[in-house]
């Protein structure tokens, strides 16, 4: 799976998105992150591993706390992809305008 797909896959789960949303406010521990959710600590840890593997979060080294922090780098790739997509179609449609003008003249 390429990095963009890994980012999409990591974002596809509502709990993981909620965790990321919480981390936009600042770093948090696993305990703090699990508080709003009605799921077990191990389940939260599993989500954190997916996010960490996708490069969306980093975790501190302190053995006991290991606070989680948001890393927006992979999201930047999503942004670049979207911008390229828009740019591709804008440029192409402008060429199509010119081609259609030419086709209309030939039609006459």
């Amino acid at each position, binding site marked *: *799976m*390429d990095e*963009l*797909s890994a980012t*999409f896959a990591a*974002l*596809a789960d509502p709990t993981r*998105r*909620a965790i*990321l*949303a919480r981390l*936009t*406010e600042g770093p948090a521990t696993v305990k703090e992150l699990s508080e709003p959710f009605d799921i077990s600590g191990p389940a939260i840890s599993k989500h954190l591993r997916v996010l960490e593997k996708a490069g969306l979060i980093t975790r501190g080294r302190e053995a006991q706390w290991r606070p989680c922090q*948001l890393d*927006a780098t992979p*999201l*930047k790739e*999503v*942004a*670049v*992809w*979207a*911008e390229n*997509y*828009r*740019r*591709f*179609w*804008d*440029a*192409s*449609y402008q*060429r*199509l*305008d*010119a*081609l*259609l*003008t030419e*086709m*209309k003249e030939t*039609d006459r």
Partner: protein
Amino acid sequence: MTTTKFGTSVTLPSDTEIAMSRTFDAPASLVWKAFTEPELLRRWLLGPDGWEMPICEVDLRVGGKWRYGWAQPDGSGAFEMHGEYTEVTPFSRIVNTEHFEDNPPAITTVTFEEVDGRTTMTSTMTLVSQEVRDIVLATGMADGAGRSYERLGEVLATL
């Protein structure tokens, strides 16, 4: 929600779709032709300057395959996508699957609507989830370039 930039409007028909609409000053028969004949497609479906379309195969019938490939004139940067047509209604509507690299396959529906000699072509792409769609929209498609990165934190906060 509707936004317009350079004449291309982006709308949200459902939770997992992004639609792009563009009106052309030509009848549907001509827009259809430009969209389905390889020798014409090659002249406009090129994106930014500096790209060519060495691969352009169109077998326009239900079950028929399509394959597009782009590269720079020296052959570098080559990439391609392919898929299969699942619906073909002349001058009106095309539905096809779309495979691009390792991405999950998407379904694209293109419609052609002619009013007073002008044709609106709408391309609807089905994405993996509502949230991905919202991020895609928030980060670039409906907005200008450059500042999108700074806004990502806000986007995430609203998920």
